[in-house]
């Protein structure tokens, strides 16, 4: 049987590891040696569970989307991560990591963000814990996700624009890593997805695994069967997908569907569909699938969705792709936008652009009338309203 969990060297199959310069080694090694031990401590778990319940608002509902199900002639459940405090799944991870940072005695928190959801979720837990917070964000993303920039500032975080490369998530991550090199003693880096050097992908996946833990229990209660036929999630770095897949990885009858951003189309040169366009390489300390030139230079990705606009995927997803455990789909900007309007008008839920990519894959799956699909609705669309009003021509109506 193939192992889908991380091995003792930090690899998922041949992907993962910690390809970092020596400057980062002491911090990453400290984390590697301690993360499982700390996560297993009863008082850590107690504090985490209490925050997840009363602060984040977990468990999030598993909602049977009746009208959407009728439209696709199957049974569709939405895992409502959009109802979390701060509006996305990202806070599951930041609550866990901020507690980890505290246990390690760190005083200063840094993070990267794309859509701004991870930045907001980090700024939120830092406000809660009284910790200094610096968030790196690409200049392009600062423009297109302005409401989240305002929220971070309101929460007391410093938002630092990343001005290199495509000025998006990849570049924000570079800047966060440089900050960590410059501040090796007091600083903890809260990575926002299942990317980066080991142990980050595994640690973030564990903090997000609460999603599939709840899906199992909730689906069992609603249908008598804890296993759906499909679990569908969008993949930027892959954290919401990792959380939604986690407890189903070793259950092959549950098909896992990972949905990437095709941007203007996978052949357009303006895309972020890493599983289609990427080759094995190294980005942000991890060996994984990576969009790159023949010479090994990282390609600038593109997606309308800031959270999916990343040229790599986490090593777990590279392994799921290569082993065939997950089905990978890619969805264009236009298809995602259509899915936004569809969910909004059928169910009265405005999804985030990222999550809309997962919804748009419903038409591709071809599920039968007696089958069950769980879509991870990773976030809400408040941050994307300007884009929606523009694209749906709703100004002044």
């Amino acid at each position, binding site marked *: 049987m193939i192992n889908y969990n991380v091995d003792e060297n930090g690899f998922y199959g041949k992907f993962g590891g910690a390809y970092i*310069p020596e400057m980062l080694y002491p911090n990453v090694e400290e984390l590697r040696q301690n993360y499982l031990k700390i996560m297993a401590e009863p008082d850590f778990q107690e504090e985490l569970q209490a925050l997840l319940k009363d602060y984040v608002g977990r468990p999030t509902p598993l909602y049977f989307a009746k009208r959407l199900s009728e439209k696709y002639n199957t049974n569709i459940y939405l895992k409502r991560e959009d109802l979390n405090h701060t509006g996305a799944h990202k806070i599951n991870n930041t609550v866990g990591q901020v507690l980890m940072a505290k246990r390690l005695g760190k005083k200063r928190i840094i993070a990267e963000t794309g859509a701004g959801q991870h930045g907001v979720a980090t700024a939120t837990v830092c406000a809660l814990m009284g910790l200094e917070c610096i968030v790196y964000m690409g200049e392009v993303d600062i423009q297109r996700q302005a409401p989240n920039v305002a929220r971070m500032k309101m929460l007391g975080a410093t938002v630092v624009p990343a001005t290199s490369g495509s000025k998006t998530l990849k570049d924000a991550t570079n800047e966060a890593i*440089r900050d960590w090199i410059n501040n090796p003693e007091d600083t903890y880096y809260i990575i926002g997805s299942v990317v980066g050097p080991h142990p980050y992908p595994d640690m973030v996946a564990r903090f997000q695994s609460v999603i599939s833990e709840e899906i199992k229990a909730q689906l069992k209660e609603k249908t008598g069967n804890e296993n759906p036929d499909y679990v569908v999630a969008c993949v930027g770095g892959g954290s919401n997908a990792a959380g939604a897949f986690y407890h189903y990885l070793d259950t092959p009858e549950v098909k896992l569907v990972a949905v990437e951003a095709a941007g203007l189309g996978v052949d357009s040169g303006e895309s972020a569909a890493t599983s289609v366009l990427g080759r094995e390489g190294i980005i942000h300390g991890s060996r994984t699938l990576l969009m790159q030139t023949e010479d090994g230079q990282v390609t600038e990705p593109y997606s309308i969705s800031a959270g999916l606009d990343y040229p790599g995927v986490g090593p777990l997803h590279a392994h799921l792709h290569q082993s065939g455990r997950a089905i990978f789909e890619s969805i264009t900007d236009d298809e995602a936008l259509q899915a936004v309007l569809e969910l909004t008008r059928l169910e009265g839920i405005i999804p985030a652009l990222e999550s809309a990519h997962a919804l748009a894959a419903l038409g591709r799956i071809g599920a039968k009338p007696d089958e069950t699909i769980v879509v991870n609705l990773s976030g809400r669309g408040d941050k994307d309203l300007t884009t929606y009003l523009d694209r749906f021509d709703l100004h002044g109506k």
Partner: protein
Amino acid sequence: MENRIKTLFEQKPQGLLSVYFTAGYPNLEDTVPIILELEKNGVDLIEVGMPFSDPLADGPTIQQSSEIALRNGMTIPKLFEQLKNIRKHTQIPLVLMGYLNPVMQYGVERFCQKAREIGIDGIILPDLPLSDYVREYTELFEQNNLSKIFLITPQTPEQRIREIDSHTNGFVYMVSSASVTGSTNGQAVANTDYFQRVGQMGLRNPGMIGFGIHNRDTFSQACNHARGAIIGSAFIKALAQEGSLEQNIQTFIQGIKQEV
């Protein structure tokens, strides 16, 4: 087999000056002229930077020189082509420095063979983990007579410094302070405790201090604590001055070496 880095450290006891530059910057074809001019001005060792799109450990100066070099069309095959006949013109020790991904795409084995053919003496790949190197590449580097140079920092624990030293040959690259490249805040030579601690460890390899060494003062202070020092960003800034390449290099290097 002779290795020019080893010979250099055997012959010159102290005050060694190593200079880093990004291949392909300021212009694509400047690589060989820069090497020859550096040698002419008495530099001891040269680190030829292979530009990468996402240089994690570098500050703004090397980020920008890398971006321009890539835009100019620099690639590993292009660099090897430029360096093909370099040993007809100079015997100065040459080290290739860059990030792992472009080398991995070129093929590590092919890369090492080609480097040997040209007469390269050492390789620095800061994001290649020590454990991967030990497991997969030690023999390959040895067969090709290439020194593998690793970095240590003020935060590296003693035991790991010893481990790194045991797998390094050439020199130990002592990162001066907790910083990406190119900082000029003076911290580069402030950490004398660290330099002394490493100095007293009796390592097999000589040490060279780099990161943030940017003028005559910082260079000479670094030389008090190690066999020599490495200058990168400050040299790249000097190349961007008005005037000819030759003039800029001469002015900069003479300014560093005065009275040392």
